[in-house]
């Protein structure tokens, strides 16, 4: 799964002045014509840089996202949920593997990306800096966070960079199963015993504000990304994604007789837009800059895994290691 609302750097247009104007024209014409850009093709420096940044953030979100849900694998109630959750979280780690490979085609190694994650130089989706306190939290994540991810990823899968689009298409298929699993688990809680209903309502209350942050700041205060839209790096604005999410999932939440913790949430039938209480963007900034409830813990776990596994990776790279016939 993936948090949208990428933190793009402010675009420096003077960078483009250094590009070969003929090649730049050809490049833009190809994208306008719906062609995909492939790893060996010419591309502007800024395009490469922003794509690496975006795909890398996405990959990091997948492995960090495996942590809050992963903690519930050992506690999932019953075989059905346990097996489904294991498979779901495994998928997320698989997505990270796909995405790191896609980013590597642009020239940054997986090791460097991992190092930048641990050092705090690159970001991941802000939503995973919040804790999954109960089983119900894990089901809300599987349903709503994955739903948000699909909105974002479906848009991006129509983008211009071939390897990323292909990875996203496969990821979206898997995410749609996650969404079904999450919805199924939430339905059981929402229609279950008093304890279960209370659990799932409290979880929804906790996850709503981070979910509203999920797609990033409103367009009116976001960094301008026109050139990225033109190059089909960014395919939909933060507000468009948020509106689409609300349109698809608020009715489903209400159908379960769960309440959304925002008294102002309603669809304006004239504008066809959802109106809501603006989430606290100061909190969003604070958390993205490292001061959220779980930032330190998430990075510490990742750092520990990297350090404890170093000897394994080193031994596997040893040229003297006995050649073993590949399995497939």
């Amino acid at each position: 799964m993936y948090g949208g609302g990428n933190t793009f750097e402010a675009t420096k247009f003077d960078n483009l002045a250094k590009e070969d104007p003929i090649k730049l024209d050809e490049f833009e014409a190809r994208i306008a014509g719906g062609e995909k850009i492939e790893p060996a093709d010419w591309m502007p420096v800024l395009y490469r840089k922003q794509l690496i940044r975006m795909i890398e953030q996405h990959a990091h979100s997948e492995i960090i996202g495996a942590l809050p849900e992963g903690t519930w694998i050992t506690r999932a109630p019953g075989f059905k949920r346990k097996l489904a959750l294991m498979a779901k979280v495994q998928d997320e780690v698989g997505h990270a593997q796909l995405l790191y490979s896609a980013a590597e085609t642009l020239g940054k190694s997986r090791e460097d990306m991992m190092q930048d994650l641990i050092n705090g130089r690159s970001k991941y989706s802000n939503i995973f800096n919040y804790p999954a306190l109960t089983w119900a939290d894990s089901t809300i994540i599987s349903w709503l966070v994955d739903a948000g991810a699909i909105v974002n990823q479906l848009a991006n899968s129509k983008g211009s960079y071939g390897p990323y689009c292909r990875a996203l298409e496969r990821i979206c298929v898997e995410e749609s199963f996650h969404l079904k699993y999450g919805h199924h688990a939430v339905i059981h809680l929402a229609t279950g015993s008093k304890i279960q209903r209370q659990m799932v309502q409290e979880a929804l209350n906790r996850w709503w504000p981070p979910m509203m942050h999920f797609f990033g700041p409103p367009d009116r205060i976001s960094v301008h990304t026109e050139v990225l839209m033109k190059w089909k790096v960014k395919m939909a604005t933060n507000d468009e994604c948020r509106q689409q999410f609300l349109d698809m999932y608020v009715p489903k939440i209400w159908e379960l007789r769960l309440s959304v913790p925002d008294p102002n949430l309603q669809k304006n039938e004239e504008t066809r837009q959802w109106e809501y209480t603006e989430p606290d963007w100061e909190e969003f900034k604070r958390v993205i800059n490292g001061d959220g409830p779980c930032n330190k813990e998430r990075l510490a776990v990742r750092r520990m895994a990297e350090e404890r596994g170093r000897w394994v990776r080193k031994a596997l790279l040893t040229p003297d290691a006995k050649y073993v016939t590949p399995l497939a």
Partner: protein
Amino acid sequence: MDKVINKIALKELLYKTADDLLILGHRNSEWTGIGPLLEEDIAFSSMAQDKIGQSLAIYELLHDLGEADPDTVAFMRNAEQFHNCKFVELPIGEYEFSLVRHFLYDHSILLRFQQLSTSSCQPLAQIARKLVGELRYHIMHADLFIKKLGTGTDESISRLQTTLEQAIPFALGVFERSPQESDLISDLIFTGEDDLYTRWCHEITKVIESTALVLPQHNLSEAKTGGRIGQHTPHLQPLLDEMAEVLRLDPSTDW
């Protein structure tokens, strides 16, 4: 299963096999998100899913034989009611321990199901034939990593060697004989733990000999036994408490 067979002995065989798979699957799932490389994270999760699924198939067979349903059996018993060997309940430790356990245990469970594929208990033989196909991949994975890391760097060889020495007595505990095993042998349900042990030694020796590792001298008298009769290390009960934490909030409800 028409003729009179020793059902207690059969159930004991099924319980110990299913409990091993459930507990080891549970342990291996703890690597999710923290593996030494993404590919191993994914591999351990995949094998954990297989093993838990395999345990479920056997608990379902037990249910057919009159035992409680799989969720109740797996999630609601206490440690002294579990028949898994002590080896599988030990914490995941560092990666070398989990890898060595995966290698030593998985060879034993593949051989067990290969034997059970021809069991006179038809439903069991059917399950066993299916699971053999899955477990072959687990063995390919274990052998590959033992060979790679067992010939990799001085550090990887030394880590594996030390772990192998610590793990062997626990691995031998897999082959703890059951009191009524002779009935299973005479009923052609199972060829017995001793036979399994002999075959296992042969298989693991072949792999270890192709590495820089040395298989420690061992014999069954050093085995860490007791697991099969419900005597466990202090690690099992906390694992079970964690596993049942949510279900026990309301065991009568559908989750």
